[in-house]
């Protein structure tokens, strides 16, 4: 048992890295991208009725999100191999999986940001405008705090998605618990190892969900 756990220590750390490093990057990029989509839509922040530039920007960024959300992760992973090599300098190890994980999680978080912002009452945006807020202030002082609970629970969902993607990334040698369970547990017929690695993944998901819910409940004042 203890032997199993020590054997899984390294993969566990890899899984944590494969989850949280892309999570941070994707949340930041996704938030910015989602904000772009939201303000270029008919959101009441900018009058888009006669602004064709914004309308086109909105259509294009929406299309990018939809395309990257529908392409299977494994395909993105393989597509990105040459770029990864250029960017990270290698195609093995956890670092090599980061670009593809970011590319698949960013559009997801961008979509979640758009949804979270859409749930903010349009009247609140209107009131802020009436009080003299500019677009920057509306985004960071109104939309962001008002949609904080939704943005935080989206981080939790994105993190859990990343855990499952990271298991697939294991297939190309990124390591992690998923890879351990598959390569050493299943293929090399070591059921205890497979179950233990799987159990750790499940535990990780539970912990992230639990802590996330706790935080969301604390910040939700509605």
């Amino acid at each position, binding site marked *: 048992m203890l032997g199993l756990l020590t054997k899984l220590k390294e993969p566990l750390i890899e899984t944590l890295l494969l989850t949280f490093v892309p999570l941070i990057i994707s949340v930041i990029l996704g938030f910015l991208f989602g904000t772009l989509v939201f303000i270029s839509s008919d959101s009441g922040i900018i009058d888009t009725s006669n602004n064709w530039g914004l309308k086109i920007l909105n259509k294009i960024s929406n299309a990018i999100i939809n395309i990257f959300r529908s392409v299977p992760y494994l395909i993105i992973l393989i597509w990105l191999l040459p770029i990864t090599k250029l960017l990270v300098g290698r195609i093995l190890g956890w670092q090599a999986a980061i670009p593809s994980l970011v590319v698949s999680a960013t559009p997801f978080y961008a979509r979640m940001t758009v949804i979270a912002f859409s749930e903010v009452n349009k009247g609140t945006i*209107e009131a802020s405008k009436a009080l003299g807020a500019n677009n920057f202030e509306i985004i960071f002082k109104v939309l962001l*705090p008002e949609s904080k609970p939704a943005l935080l629970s989206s981080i939790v969902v994105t993190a859990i998605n990343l855990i499952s993607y990271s298991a697939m990334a294991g297939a190309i040698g990124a390591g992690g618990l998923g890879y351990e369970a598959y390569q050493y547990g299943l293929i090399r017929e070591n059921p205890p190892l497979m179950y233990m690695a799987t159990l750790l993944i499940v535990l990780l998901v539970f912990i992230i969900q639990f802590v996330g819910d706790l935080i969301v409940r604390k910040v939700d004042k*509605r």
Partner: protein
Amino acid sequence: MISIINVSKTFKGKNDVSAVKNVSLEIKDKEIFGIVGYSGAGKSTLIRLVNQLEKADSGQILIDGVDICELKGEALRKQRQEIGMIFQHFNLLWSKTVLENIMFPLVLKGLPKKEREEEAIKMAKEVGLEDKLDVYPSTLSGGQKQRVAIARALVLNPKILLCDEATSALDPKTTEEILELLKKINKEYGLTILMISHQMETIQKICHKLAVMADGKIVEQGSVDDIFANPTDPLTKELIQTVDTGVDVNKLSIELKDKYPQGHLLRITFSDKTSEKPILYSIALKLNIPINIVSANLKMTQAGSLGVIYIHIEEKKDIGPFLAELELQGLKVEVV
């Protein structure tokens, strides 16, 4: 203070909606001006043109001589800080406490934290929320939420307050309280208030002047007492009748006629100039006509009391001189 000159606004789309059609209004300094009309009349659009939440297609809106339609960017935002606004659904920041909500305009203005708090607390006291500073709006009642919104709108010391159906989501008692608060603010701060409502009663209670709006146009405007005394547009009459007695006037007339089939039944409308004096009594005394008041409903407004009295006079009496005398005194009389 606010001059709306020939303003029009059409919403473009599959079917163009012409919301405001060539409207002109003059709102004087320190005045409470009400715009009343059914939903879809264009009131909401009109009030949003005043602080440019909607852009007008044509016309001018002068605020202290400056056309707000011409302003853009920073200049527009500065001007907006001179115009407070409150809404039907309060539109508060639900993630922020009462104090933080009231402070929000001061944050936007870039005031230091200490001054922000002082100003906001002062304003919270003004609206009676000093013991709710640290709670979140979701725990407040409707009336309290609107008080937060009022404090937030007034914390920058604006010259104008726009009220968009501010009491329409509140119960009658709370409506009364909020209207009292607005009246107090109008007096204390010399604030000009422009309010829209679909309820004539709300307008009549606190406004000095009113305009009736239908289908994007102003159909009638004037001082509240003049319009109540002599409405000309059918829509105005209809709206006033919902206020006069709280019951259907036509129904009341029919009921009274049923009850007093003999003799003369008169419906007399009082306005501010007439209600303070014992006119009815002196005329009855002078002409020696015994009158019987069968129904009366008087309401207090900013201008004085307004209302309707039904009187009954026995058949054998000639009511000609009586009617002439009443009209001489400026009362509006109808024989039912």
